[in-house]
């Protein structure tokens, strides 16, 4: 299972730029990113190529960050995957696309979802 970074940011010009700058300075690549906003703040959710380095960099920058387990599947499996999850009563909380024709999915029960998908022969990353 993959760890996603969920970062609390104020919804103001320049904040996102600061964050991406921080990644650049620490040679951390963003593999996938989605933003959810509500009023004056938002959450940046992203998959990063160097999670340990990223945790350290974000902590040093006093960022409010949470690590969340997510599933990554190939886009071509999307139809089957959501069907399997639905049948097993697993809810998809949110999802966003990623490079390489993949999609990041956050569900309410990660291990159950992973098992269900693997039983159905769907590859997860």
């Amino acid at each position: 299972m993959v760890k996603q970074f969920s970062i609390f940011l104020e919804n103001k010009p320049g904040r996102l730029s600061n964050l991406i700058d921080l990644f650049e300075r620490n040679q951390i690549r963003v593999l996938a990113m989605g933003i959810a906003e509500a009023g004056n703040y938002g959450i940046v959710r992203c998959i990063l190529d160097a999670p340990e380095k990223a945790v350290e960099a974000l902590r040093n920058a006093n960022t409010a960050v949470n690590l969340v387990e997510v599933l990554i599947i190939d886009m071509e499996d999307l139809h089957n995957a959501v069907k399997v999850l639905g049948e097993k009563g697993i809810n998809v909380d949110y999802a966003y696309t990623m490079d390489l024709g993949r999609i990041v999915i956050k569900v309410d029960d990660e291990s159950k979802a992973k098992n269900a998908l693997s039983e159905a022969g769907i590859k997860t990353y």
Partner: protein
Amino acid sequence: MSIQAYSMGKKEIKEVQSRKLKEVVARVYENSPFYRRRLKEAGIDITNFRPEDIRKIPFTTKTDLRDNYPLGLISVDKSKIVRMHASSGTTGNPTVVAYTKRDIDAWAELNKRCLEVCGVTSDDVVQVAYGYGLFTGGLGLHYGAERLGSKVIPASTGNTKRQLKLMKDLGTTVLACTPSYALFLSESAKEEGIDPKKDLKLRVGVLGAEPWSESTRKVLEEEFVQSAHDIYGMSELNGPGVAIECRKKNGLHVWEDHYFVEIIDPNTGEVLEPGEKGEMVVTTLEKEGMPLLRYRTRDITILDDEVCECGMAHARIKKILGRTDDMLKIRGICVFPSQIEEVISGFEGLTPFYQLVVDRDGPLDRLLVKVEVSENFKSDRLTEIVDLQKRLEEELRDVLSISAAVELTEPRTLPRSEGKAQRIIDLRKI
């Protein structure tokens, strides 16, 4: 001397107060033209003065001190004055307070008592990180700690890295500073790679000069100092050392052999009963250089006259709930920053740092409360954050009786201060 002060019973305290009240009224009548005029105008009979007559004496206010700038309220010959402190005069003249040799001595004794009540002994290393200079915090605690025989580090404010280095290298066990600076030191320690619980030996925090809440105590005691005590004072009443929290931390004991306390309704001036919330009014019983009769402190609190579980009979005031000057009038309703602080403290993932912005939208006042999230803030589910914000707004409305908008800010974005925290921005043009 001090053993006697701790063991005084209620009856003894009342007797001492009655005697000293009569003495101080007679003394200012004799020596201060200002008070002689005031007392005459109020028709006070000095020779047959009874303790209950105190209620007939008009209040002394900060405006009286300013109007009689600089030394119009002293009650001794100027030659007997050995020290003068002054408060920051943000508007108009500063307030000057004057001490005789005897006053300095009594003030040191009161601060020694306060430190002892917190469990400080001559073996302790006391770092005084209040400002030294015109502000009374630094010198007040300094003299008290020195009188107790502790090892004093007169660090004063600022230079946070050096403060931490001194704590570590000199083995500081007692820290005296403002609560907001203690929070800042605690945060900075972690940034410097210092684990306060392992690398420092801070046993006691003597924290005052601004109101602070139980939530701040919780954070400080969990992360920084074993036992955090609130100390109360103001330069007009010598400085720090007027009241102190004992180990029970259920209110601050006022040294009643030096200060006579009344709680009044700030609007009508009527004296309230113990248990009722109002403005604290203090008559100094021992001050020689500049005694004050019924001085309006502008601090809002509640008096508790029961004997404390710690055994001391000196009456207690509750942690200061706010100041009549900090009191914001928003849409005609009185709001104290401390009320907001208490609400914030009930929520997980928020820091004790906040800022109030009052603005005006047409004829209507708007209150915006900026609340800083901590690094442990749950930041994945937007619905949870929206929900938290909504609950904060609802609770603020319940507590304040007016609506306030909450804005969540990122960690370490609201201003920190090394002295008193600046938490209110009033943008209303009135």
